[in-house]
């Protein structure tokens, strides 16, 4: 059997894009297709180890192999981007990857009251007896980003070397809370997984559910969601631009971005939405508000002149952002780095092209190749202006017909939403109307595998600028 140009070993098809293969088939496929597909995400529970790939033509492929006696063959030896997923599976379910690139804990830093908390038999841990992670030189709450990210490094010749990052401090037990809930009960939790995706996370989740249940949505609902995604993109890009400018000492630029973002938040509340669009995506009923067209008109009218002013000012601080936290093109492709980071580094993939009803005529395919903080800021500005064009196109033919594919109900779904920080993926399995399994792939996951190397060679004083220029939000990975 084949998927695109990838030849799959014999296996059982269990979902629209999902195959289960034997351990031999798994290994064979990983070995043979390293250059033909990108690994987007990896997860494992006590029954199955699953890799999410992107094939040529942006078609997703889920490949699973059985976990036998708590073990499976590591994907990270062929696809290094799988390492964080393998480490998290070990912490949460207690399953181990043979020949893993890294088998150190990623989430369990010895503070939990249970070991392998998502396994069928979690083990109680007495207070103070857990195995702590090595202390970081910079504690998780001390970096310049709002989330929790520990950074450790060795200082050599005044620059950082052997940089390692930790996200364990931010683990809240999201997956343990979601499993067993009805989709409706899960919505408030999913809506608060990451402030880097108050729209993108629930949208990917809802799309996965709709695929699992073969539910078609109203065309106006489709467009309301697309608009909300673009408004969130604007808000987060302005936040990241402001933080980058602030760290670069460009105070005026930071102020303009901050004021523009708060103006956008004010427009949201004035039109009946929440400031940061929390709870705006709905599983049933209408997302956003009924009067989306006046809302879009107000956003375009209010934000476009401010963006132009920011664009003019941005060039004055260009020099401070060059060569900061450069992500080489090859790294972006090898690790499937998405969002602004990928598109500023020569990986011009955008999952919005997979969206039903996408207005491609408004998407200019803006992209850069330099890969540094300067390129990311330029990319954010270009995508912000593009977001306004997309919204204008949507309201011009609001609710227009688009090609739709009828799909069978499988009780398993894969959903994606291209958020401001990259592509968010959800895989859900339903059983008797409840969530039997949920897996979340946040765009930060693949970046974590290379973040250390991206930061190496910088002076410690540049760390804040490097981190904020990447737009990191660890909450979506730490879960």
């Amino acid at each position: 059997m084949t998927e695109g140009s990838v030849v799959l070993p014999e296996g059982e098809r269990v979902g629209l894009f999902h195959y289960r293969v034997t351990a031999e088939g798994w290994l064979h496929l990983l070995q043979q297709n390293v250059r033909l597909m990108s690994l987007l995400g990896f997860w494992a529970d006590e029954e199955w180890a699953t890799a999410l790939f992107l094939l040529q033509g942006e078609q997703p492929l889920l490949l699973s192999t059985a976990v036998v006696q708590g073990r499976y063959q590591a994907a990270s030896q062929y696809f290094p981007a799988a390492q964080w997923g393998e480490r998290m599976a070990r912490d949460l379910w207690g399953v181990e990857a043979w020949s893993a690139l890294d088998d150190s804990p990623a989430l369990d830093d010895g503070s939990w009251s249970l070991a392998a908390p998502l396994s069928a038999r979690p083990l109680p841990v007495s207070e103070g007896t857990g195995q702590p992670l090595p202390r970081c030189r910079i504690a998780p709450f001390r970096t310049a980003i709002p989330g929790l990210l520990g950074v450790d490094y060795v200082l050599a010749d005044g620059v950082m070397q052997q940089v390692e990052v930790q996200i364990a401090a931010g683990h809240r037990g999201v997956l343990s809370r979601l499993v067993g809930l009805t989709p409706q009960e899960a919505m408030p939790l999913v809506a608060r997984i990451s402030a880097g995706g108050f729209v993108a996370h629930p949208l990917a989740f809802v799309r996965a559910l709709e695929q699992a249940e073969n539910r078609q949505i109203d065309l106006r609902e489709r467009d309301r969601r697309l608009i909300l995604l673009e408004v969130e993109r604007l808000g987060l890009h302005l936040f990241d631009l402001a933080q980058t400018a602030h760290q670069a000492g460009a105070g005026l630029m930071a102020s303009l971005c901050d004021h523009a973002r708060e103006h956008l938040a004010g427009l949201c509340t004035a039109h009946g939405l929440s400031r940061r669009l929390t709870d705006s995506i709905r599983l049933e009923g209408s997302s956003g508000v009924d009067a989306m067209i006046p809302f879009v008109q107000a956003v375009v009218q209010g934000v476009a002149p401010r963006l132009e002013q920011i664009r003019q000012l941005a060039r004055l601080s260009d020099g401070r952002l060059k060569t900061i936290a450069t992500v080489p093109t090859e790294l972006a492709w090898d690790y499937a780095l998405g969002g602004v980071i990928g598109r500023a580094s020569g990986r011009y993939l955008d999952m919005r092209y997979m969206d039903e009803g996408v207005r491609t005529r408004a998407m200019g395919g803006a992209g850069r190749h330099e890969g540094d903080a300067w390129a990311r800021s330029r990319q954010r500005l270009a995508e912000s202006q593009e977001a306004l064009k997309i919204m204008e196109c949507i309201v011009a033919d609001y609710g227009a017909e688009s090609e739709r594919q009828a799909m069978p109900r499988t009780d398993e779904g894969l959903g994606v939403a291209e958020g401001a920080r990259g592509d968010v993926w959800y895989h859900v399995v339903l059983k008797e109307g409840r969530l039997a399994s949920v897996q979340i792939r946040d765009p930060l996951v693949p970046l974590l595998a290379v973040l250390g190397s991206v930061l190496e060679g910088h002076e410690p004083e540049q760390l804040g600028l490097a981190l904020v220029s990447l737009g990191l939000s660890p909450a979506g990975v730490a879960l």
Partner: protein
Amino acid sequence: MQSAPLTMMLAFLDVQKWRPRPVRRQGRRIRLFTLEAGSCEGCAMELVSLGSSAYPLEGSGFQRVQHPEDADWLLVTGSVTRSCAGDLASAWEAMPAGRSLVAVGDCAHDGGLWKNTYATLGGLHALSRVYGSIPGCPPSPASILQALVELAEGGSSPTGSHASSASRRSRQ
């Protein structure tokens, strides 16, 4: 394309024009140290916004500081993961006498949607007496500022029942 000096001057004038009016209050300047303790980061991002020029935090008698040793109030966001409990305790211990603890957002107050689990402790109320709680998920920068001013003036906050009931409970 405008010249660089003209671009800067116009931007400067706009920022001046948009600059919000400070909230006048009595009393000394209060130094704030913020600590994220495990959340979606929404409240932490709103605190970042509060510290920007879009809000008159400094003009209203507050100052953000980089070290807990220099702080009067500890503003906590997040449901307090077990992993963060040590950092929270260390920051609190490092603060000088007269310190106060303020929970920003529903998670920091009582865990919000993330109650006591294997990984979280379910907010500050389960752990310690707090001086004030600012409800919201996330609370807006304006409502955080309003609540801070009211806490500083020793009155109850109109931003919600949590703040009213929790204000001025504990100063150490």
